């Protein structure tokens, strides 16, 4: 797209109140450039999920703008936006609703109009990227939790998204599945926004972190620096797990 830097995601002054009057976002500003992996940290109730719902137009901004690769999220761009923003939900059982893994991965691209051999190829590529190709004909409920989460990632990769948005990717995973997912995420050539309060996972995968607290972005910087600031973390109900110290090499 030319020599200018394209921003995968650009949010300006985003505010949102739920219909019952609860204000969840008070003016969020953030920019993510193409190829970045960014962690969005915040305690429960900080508005993380509300923010994520704005990224592909499930909720529409009360005030402010959201743009994905330069395209504003609006009623008439929804179809395009939903292809560009790959949302991976927390519970893979919510995400995998088709009878087989293959059908589920095909759902998005098929909605975009792909059929036949082209569809097969896209599905195969996406499953290969997460190492789940051999499970293509299994029903999702016969897979382990970690496998289901990997398939959930494949379902959105198949849509060739501009940005991959993961909601608590490490939740409920055993240590091995957690590491396997990290390896997969690191191998992908795509912009990633990871919503989490698993701070070590953010440190492992994301160069940059944002802290969302009280409906605004209250910190934005290099992950190792943010996580080394105990005072900052404590003021937003975040803390590193017991015994965890940030490896020295990350400080450099």
């Amino acid at each position, binding site marked *: 797209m030319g020599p200018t830097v394209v921003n995968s995601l650009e949010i300006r002054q985003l505010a949102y109140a739920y219909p019952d009057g609860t204000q969840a976002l008070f003016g969020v500003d953030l920019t993510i450039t193409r190829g970045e992996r960014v962690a969005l940290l915040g305690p429960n109730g900080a508005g993380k999920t509300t923010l994520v719902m704005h990224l592909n137009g499930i909720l529409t901004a009360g005030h402010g703008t959201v743009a994905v690769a330069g395209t504003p999220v609006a009623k008439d761009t929804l179809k395009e936006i939903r292809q560009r923003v790959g949302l991976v939900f927390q519970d893979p059982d919510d995400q995998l609703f*088709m009878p087989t893994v293959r059908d589920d991965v095909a759902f998005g691209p*098929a909605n975009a109009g792909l059929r036949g051999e082209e569809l097969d190829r896209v599905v195969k590529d996406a499953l290969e990227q997460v190492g789940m190709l051999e499970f293509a004909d299994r029903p999702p*409920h016969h897979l382990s939790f970690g496998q289901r989460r990997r398939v959930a990632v494949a379902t959105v990769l198949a849509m060739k998204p501009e940005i991959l948005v993961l909601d608590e990717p490490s939740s409920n995973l055993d240590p091995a599945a957690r590491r396997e997912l990290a390896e997969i995420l690191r191998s992908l050539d795509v912009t990633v926004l990871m919503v989490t309060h698993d701070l070590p996972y953010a440190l492992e995968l994301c160069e940059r972190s944002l802290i969302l607290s009280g409906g605004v972005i209250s910190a934005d910087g290099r992950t190792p620096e943010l996580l080394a600031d105990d005072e900052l973390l404590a003021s937003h109900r975040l803390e590193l797990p017991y015994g965890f110290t940030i490896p020295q090499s990350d400080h450099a």
Partner: protein
Amino acid sequence: MGAGHHHQLHLPGDSVVHRLPPQCKLLAVLAFAVVVVATPRERFWAFAVYAVLLAGVAVVARVPAAHIVRRMAIELPFVLFAFLIPVIGLGERTDVLGLSLSVPGLWAAWNILAKATLGVVASILLASTTEPRVILIGAQRLRLPSLLVQIAMFMLRYLDVIVDEMRRMRVARESRGFEARDFRQMPVLARSAGALFIRSYERGERVHLAMLSRGYTGQMPMIHDISASVGQWGTALALPVLALAVWALPW
């Protein structure tokens, strides 16, 4: 395909019947059932021929008789009902083994038994040779209302998830000393059922969001376009056509 071991109705195989496109089989079973139902109950041997036709399908599909008989258990309530009709029926009566039975009742019972059994066996043959999800693809191909097909599809997908949720709730109840002994425990069970309903409803909303996120517009995309050749339609429809020929024979 992996779905086999869970859906005990389906017998994986590679016979001619297994390979037929689902829409052909669905229509064939439906047409066969219509012919059976339309046959006057007095034509005993027409029903015998229908049974032979189904036996033929079972042989070609390599579905063992034991499998069919075991699955026929679903018909039992109707059988019981059919046996009751001659006893409680009105009109002319006759003595069978010392029991006074109603003649119209006997005819009605025979009618129900014969037709229901043939219909059930035909459905078992369909289910044994076609994976549940493939049957739904067939229904989609036949342009059945897409909403109904989607509901059936989600039921198939989420049945295990909901059963699992139910099991966890039971374990949670029992680990706190609850035992369902008699009617007095009903309110607890009713509340569990209510909670399960709300959880499932909320899951439905989340699934809908996930579908919207991947471009769902109200229609399921036709991912598997299983088209049927004229030959396949011919093979599948041989069953109802033969049945129709029997029905049309001069008596």
